[in-house]
């Protein structure tokens, strides 16, 4: 106990703090880029699943398969899969890129379901009316469904992003220098694990908690009415 407090001044040196904060930034960057790309792909998958007719059937089936597979694999295993696949293909990309790609895959699988639930929240009669007036699927989605569904889609998407800030800790296993990795480095430098991991916990909290509050605000703000108020 005594030694922990004794280490504190040395632990809080400028160099260490810069290293840890840099790592925290990497955590944030990894989560944001992974979720943004994941959302774009997930959105595409959700749109694909709305198509009808035999022409699109193979793509539709592929989309369902992709979602059902990657929703059921732990992030850690996805990370290893992508990592070793890149190695086998002799792709020379950084571990950070591997982590972003893995996040993107998992994110696409989960977020496509979020988007699909949002589409389903719009009364089917409005879509029928659009169909009877010869709107194409793209027109129906972009002019009628999405302008209403985004309120349903946004809060759970944000919640997924939040959960990914925490899941990104697993990327430390590949050697991505993010917050958890920095804690292990401090540990290996001989600092007490209470300090190293304690600092990581505090920083994760400092990132996640305000965002969680914002997410709650979003949910309350958008949740009540899906209709546009004047």
């Amino acid at each position: 106990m005594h030694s922990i407090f004794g280490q504190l001044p040395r632990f809080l040196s400028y160099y260490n703090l810069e290293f840890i904060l840099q790592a925290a930034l990497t955590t944030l960057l990894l989560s944001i880029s992974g979720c943004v790309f994941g959302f774009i792909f997930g959105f595409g998958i959700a749109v694909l699943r709305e198509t009808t007719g035999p022409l699109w059937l193979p793509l539709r089936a592929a989309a369902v398969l992709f979602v059902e597979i990657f929703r059921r694999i732990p992030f850690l295993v996805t990370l290893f899969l992508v990592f070793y696949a890149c190695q086998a293909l002799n792709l020379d990309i950084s571990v950070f890129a591997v982590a972003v790609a893995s996040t993107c895959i998992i994110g696409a699988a989960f977020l496509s379901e979020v988007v699909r639930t949002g589409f389903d929240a719009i009364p089917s009669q409005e879509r029928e009316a659009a169909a009877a007036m010869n709107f194409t699927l793209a027109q129906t989605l972009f002019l009628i469904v999405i302008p209403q569904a985004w309120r349903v889609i946004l809060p759970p998407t944000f919640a997924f992003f939040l959960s990914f800030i925490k899941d990104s800790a697993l990327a430390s296993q590949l050697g991505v220098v993010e917050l958890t990795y920095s804690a292990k480095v401090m540990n290996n430098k001989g600092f007490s694990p209470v300090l190293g991991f304690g600092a990581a916990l505090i920083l994760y909290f400092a990132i996640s908690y305000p965002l969680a509050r914002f997410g709650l605000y979003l949910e309350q703000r958008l949740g009540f009415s899906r209709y546009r108020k004047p």
Partner: protein
Amino acid sequence: MDFLGIENLKARYGEHVVLNDISMTVEKGEIVSLIGPSGSGKSSLLRALVGLLPVESGEVRLNGEIINYRDKQAVKRLRDRLAIVFQQYNLFQNMDVLRNVMLAPMKVKGWPREECEREATALLEKVGLGAKLHVYPDQLSGGQQQRVALARALALRPEILLLDEVTSALDPELVNEVLDSIRLLASEGMTMIIVSHEMAFVREVSSRVSMMAAGSIVEIGTPDEIFQNPKHERARDFVGKILHR
């Protein structure tokens, strides 16, 4: 030749046969009403006509063209000429009244914006909503929403208008404002197929009335024939019930 011809149309929903060998014709300028108990297939017939309910067999001809419902392009051409108004109005909740009406002409037909806006405004004035152009659907009464839905259907300049129980979801005091708009269209010679439970209105406005039960047409004739002197027992039964209500 008949304007719209339906021959041996059959449709089912799972195991349940909803349309069983429907045959009828509609001439240009005619108003044909479909009556009958709930679940008799009146709404299903309208939905099948616009391709919202898959047709199993049978034939539909519009102005001589045979419509193959499996052919997406043919359905598209058909929907270009028919418009349907639903019981639940089904207005787009994310846009104001004017945009609801001008959206399809603009985006689907590709007509110029100013023209669409002018025509939409005129149509909304015609149904008595000229003062509500920039109001959102959820701020309107049911009757007003249904009149917007009428204007929206008319904006596509359809050759036949299908009305699917357009007053059934309305409070009684709001029914007449919608019926008045329909009367106006009738006086202009609009071809319509109407599904309705408003018997007095059906009698007043229809050229012919078709009585349906259990997915089939039981009897078809002029309003007087159907209401005063129904030949078929089931039609007598139904008419008896509604007249003594």
